[in-house]
């Protein structure tokens, strides 16, 4: 009997070490077993909170946790591999998301275009029958390259191409170029999707840049070096860059140019007219020749007698030192030289 008493006493002492599993609360706590959440609506006791805060909060937490555990135990339990397991119900508390809900994936440029045009993606067969090879050939992936190599073991050199050019290498280059282009387009799609600012233009170097790009670079540089509305002077035949998106590249291009000048408009215009009218005429040899020709012709028409005389003299004129025969109105003649020749003959 002693042993029994001893055991009971020991158990009693053990039990005393633990706090009871029943907890009294002024207001019932709100429990959400699904997310293992317990909310205590009771007020904190100011007195206790001031004197021994840590102990008080610890006790309070234990009590509330106890209540939560109690409710978990009320759920149907089962034993799986020596463990008692309870199935939690669906959580009732709505927790706010950390991040925003992801939207639909931004479309690539092609996808957008295809959607607009209503282009549907056609699924290709994994294998197609090749008539030249006389067997089924994969359209992509494993052993496709082998099949192609087998098929195109020889390549034609077109007539307009240098015969020493390696057509196989050309094909490889073309493919590499396509891959590079695709990579650039992929990057552009990412840029478009993330809506980040990326410099679009700049100087690409004289080897690479097209004339349009060079023109844009010049225009951008000019507006960048401008100072207080003063721009670098234009070259005689310089063009202004234009096209889609060029204006956005040029700093201050959207700003409207001011037309207010110190000089009155009339004077500015008159000055301009003066400069236009005083322009030196171009030295036009073609025109000079035609005028000269015309004058000669008029002269001949007005006094045909002289013309006849001239012709006679030309025929019989062998008395001189052997000057060349006059070229009867053919070819180009310098007007100064012509008279000199004529005098010699006389």
């Amino acid at each position, binding site marked *: 009997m002693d042993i029994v008493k001893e055991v009971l006493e020991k158990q009693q002492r053990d039990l005393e070490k633990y706090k009871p599993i029943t907890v009294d609360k002024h207001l019932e706590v709100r429990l959400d077993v699904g997310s293992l959440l317990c909310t205590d609506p009771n007020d904190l006791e100011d007195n206790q909170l001031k004197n021994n805060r840590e102990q008080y909060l610890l006790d309070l937490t234990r009590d509330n946790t106890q209540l939560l555990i109690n409710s978990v135990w009320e759920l149907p339990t089962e034993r799986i591999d020596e463990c008692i397991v309870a199935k939690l119900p669906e959580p009732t508390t709505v927790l706010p998301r950390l991040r925003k809900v992801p939207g639909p994936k931004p479309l690539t440029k092609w996808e957008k275009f295809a959607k607009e045009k209503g282009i549907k993606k056609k699924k290709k067969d994994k294998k197609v029958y090749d008539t030249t090879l006389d067997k089924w050939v994969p359209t992509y992936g494993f052993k496709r390259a082998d099949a192609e190599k087998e098929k195109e073991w020889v390549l034609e050199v077109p007539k307009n191409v240098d015969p020493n050019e390696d057509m196989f290498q050309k094909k490889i280059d073309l493919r590499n170029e396509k891959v590079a282009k695709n990579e650039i387009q992929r990057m552009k799609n990412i840029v478009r999707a993330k809506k980040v600012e990326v410099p679009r233009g700049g100087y690409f170097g004289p080897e690479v840049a097209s004339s349009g790009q060079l023109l844009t670079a010049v225009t951008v540089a000019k507006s960048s070096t401008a100072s207080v509305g003063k721009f670098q002077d*234009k070259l005689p035949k310089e063009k*202004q860059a*234009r096209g889609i998106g060029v204006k956005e590249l040029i700093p201050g291009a959207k700003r409207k*140019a001011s*037309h207010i000048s110190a000089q009155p*408009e*009339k004077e*500015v*215009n*008159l000055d*301009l*007219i003066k*400069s*236009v*009218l005083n322009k030196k005429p171009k030295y036009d040899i073609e*025109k000079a020749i*035609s005028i000269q020709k*015309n004058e000669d*012709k008029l002269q001949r028409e007005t006094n045909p007698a002289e013309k006849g005389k001239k012709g006679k003299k030309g025929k019989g004129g062998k008395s001189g030192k052997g000057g060349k025969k006059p070229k009867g109105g053919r070819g180009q003649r310098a007007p100064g030289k012509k008279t000199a020749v004529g005098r010699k003959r006389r």
Partner: protein
Amino acid sequence: MKRLSDERAKILFEKLSKYIGTNVKQLIDRPDGTYCFREHRDRVYYVSERILKLSECFGPEKLVCVGTCFGKFSKTNKLKFHITALYYLAPYAQYKVWVKPSFEQQYLYGNHIPKSGLGRITENAGQYQGVVVYSMNDLPLGFGVLARSTTECKTADPMTTVCFHQSDIGEYIRSEDTLF
């Protein structure tokens, strides 16, 4: 309505001087009030200052046309004269071409002038000189550019083009909607 930029004003005066030479000055330096050139939707208008002031009451979107439309700047900054400019080109023109009455109608349909259609021509006009085209009873019909100089014209075949057609008064009907 904005003032022409220096670049465009220069293009305009160069073009004008092709047709009326030194008389360009008289368009700006007028005794009967100040006139000026204005640009609106790439078109060049010749307006008196008095009317310009009145036009400023209206916004640029609402404004269709003020004064006389001289021409239109292309996107490559080239000026093309409209037939409406004839009113100012004709009185000041230095080089003129008269077309025969039989060719008048053809010219008004937009054809170039061949030698056979040529009635008279000003002396000493060079090739590619801007000219005003008249009917034989001195009615301005349009303007164009000489394909041959006056002297070359005399020897040319009857079918060779003497003057390129640029604009004629038939355009008032043919391209009514784009003129102003």
